């Protein structure tokens, strides 16, 4: 089976992996969503995560980003264990994620949606908001500048002052992407960025991802169903099926992998058969 073996006790191997997932298991009652998943995401890569519905992709993201505790297994970040850490701590390490259904802050404007992202803002401390306005203003100006760039990049500028709740589905997706661009993220976990987005917009998003990867040195891990879109962007591609890693490799390898095709068609060589 795919996925590299990894030992959780002897983690001495020098490697380039930014994020390493070892023997991760997540169970909801009797339902096993993740069944001993092991995989790693290399620094600077755009890793694609594919698989049929119910394969456990979003659950994997939830566990990595700290929204759900794993039943067992370990997650390592740059060699340090981060299993079970709360989301805001992971964020401070540079782990960002987006959601399949956009989770915008609907009463905030598009600009505020972007500007709220960076952690540890000087003005997020109540005392400073009362007594150090000048310093806040300076930082806000920087943030606003960055937000402006991001909005320009994503063609959201005309909507800057619009409450995010009023945006269309595709625009919300762009905003989700934009939020990840507000900080120097180390890794962005993208959940179905293409769902509900039209082709032209998808092109824009794809370009943005490549540029962010090359110029800003972001690492991406993205769940995506559109194979042509994934194969253009991603290397490697990891295929999950029934909570397990089914295959891993370049897009050519995956496209020709009979096992993968069968998994999508529903003829699984599940090991528990």
């Amino acid at each position, binding site marked *: 089976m795919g996925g590299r073996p990894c030992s959780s006790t002897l983690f001495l191997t020098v490697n380039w992996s930014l994020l390493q997932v070892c023997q991760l298991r997540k169970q909801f009652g009797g339902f096993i969503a993740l069944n001993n998943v092991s995989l790693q995401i290399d620094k600077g890569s755009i890793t694609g995560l594919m698989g049929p519905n119910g394969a456990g992709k979003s659950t994997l993201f939830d566990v990595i*980003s700290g*929204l759900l505790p794993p039943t067992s297994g370990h997650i390592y970040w740059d060699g340090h264990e981060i299993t079970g850490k*709360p*989301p*805001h701590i992971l*964020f*401070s390490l540079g782990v*960002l*994620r987006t*959601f399949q259904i956009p*989770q*915008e*802050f*609907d*009463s*905030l404007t598009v600009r*505020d*949606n972007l*500007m*709220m*992202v*960076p*952690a540890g*803002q*000087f*003005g*997020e*401390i*109540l005392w*400073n*908001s*009362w007594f150090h*306005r000048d310093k*806040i203003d300076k*930082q*806000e100006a920087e943030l606003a500048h960055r937000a402006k760039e991001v909005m320009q990049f994503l063609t959201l500028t005309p909507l800057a002052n619009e409450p995010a709740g009023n945006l269309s589905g595709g625009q919300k997706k762009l905003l989700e992407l934009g*939020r990840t661009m507000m900080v120097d993220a180390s890794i962005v976990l993208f959940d179905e960025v293409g769902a509900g987005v039209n082709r032209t917009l998808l092109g824009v998003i794809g370009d943005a991802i490549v540029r962010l990867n090359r110029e800003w040195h972001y690492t991406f891990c993205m769940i995506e169903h559109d194979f042509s879109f994934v194969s253009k962007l991603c290397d490697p591609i990891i295929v999950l099926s029934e909570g397990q890693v089914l295959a891993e490799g370049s897009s050519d390898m995956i496209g020709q992998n009979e096992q993968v095709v069968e998994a999508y068609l529903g003829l699984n060589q599940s090991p528990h058969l």
Partner: protein
Amino acid sequence: MSGRDRVYFVLCLLLIIGVGIFQSWNVALTMINFALISAILSLGLNIQWGFGGLFNVGIMGFVALGGLAVVVVSAPPVEEAWRAGGWRVLSALFVAVLAIGGSLFVWKRWRPKKYGAVSLVVFLTMAFVLYRFLFDPAVLAIEKVNPALSGFLGGFNLPVLLAWPVGGLLAAAAAMMIGHIALGLRSDYLAIATLAIAEVLVAILKHEEWLTRGVKNVTGLPRPVPYEVDLQQSIWFQEWASQLGIDGIEASSLTVKLCYMVLLIIVLALIFTLCQRALNSPWGRMMRAIRDNERAASVMGKDVKRRHLQIFVLGSAVFGIAGAMMTTLDGQFIPSSYQPLRFTFLIWIMVIVGGSGNNWGAVLGGLLIWFLWIQVEPIGLATIDFLTKPLHPTSPLRVHLIDSAAHMRYVMMGLFLLLVLRFRPQGLIPER
């Protein structure tokens, strides 16, 4: 603030001036003073509900704690009561704190072991017996000391203005404890829990006579402003009043109320400025983001739990300050006067009618709803009187209706709330 928002405030002002002209300036000033305190309460709730989406229905409890602060800070100490059992009561409370802390420790340490629950019960029973052994005689002794006049420990005889921040701190400390345990609950459960906790707090204030004199009330609390009698007797004041051509007694009472008003306006302005600054800052942005979507906010690096606790404590501190101010204004502490309808639900109506999430809206709601709360009764009375004029003055229907006008305020408040929720759910002054 937009033009229309200003119109609302001018309208409020006109209403109050109207009261001054048609009823009396004394009434108008009293109304203003309580309206200002309502505005502060409403700001406090706006921090919790408007900024952070916390459904707190326990406002009354924190207001009462603020009132207690006035007693503790500024009432004169009763030396005899302290000698009779003051230290013993304190040691009993110390035992109680130790017992609770100890049981938490035992629970954490021993729960996995076999006899964890049993040992906890044994420990608590022992602690309870010890507590009652220390507490009961002491309380009896204290309450026996001149029961008609004191029968309680009294306070520290410090300036009453100090009680305002102390009230805030006391409420904040209580909120810290309550928040730690209750904030994880879903919104409707949080509502029920806070409602219940507030009732327990007030029940304690009502019945622990050694602390608050209970139903006997603490009267004659010191004031931050001069007494009317002193003013009337001072020569400069008499001259000044006669120069203005006002009766000395009325002048003195107006002056006292004006002094209070100035103090209240200072506090309101201070809290308002802090609220505005906080809301229009990255802090406020973060809070609103958390309110809109907790899950996404936590993934965007915000510590939702800590922030919820922060606004819970902050808003409750404001309730405590307002509670202390109200008790100071009354000059007495009446534990049985704390009713949820008046101190919790009325504040909710203020915030929702004014516009939650907007500080101007909260202040407007506080002023306007207080005005209506007071004036619904006379207006209703006048209306009923007018409508039933054709009836004989002693006709039972007319008498009954006139009697019942006093209770129209609840119906009217409920109606306001429902109408605003239905036709202007964002309130008179919307969030933005």
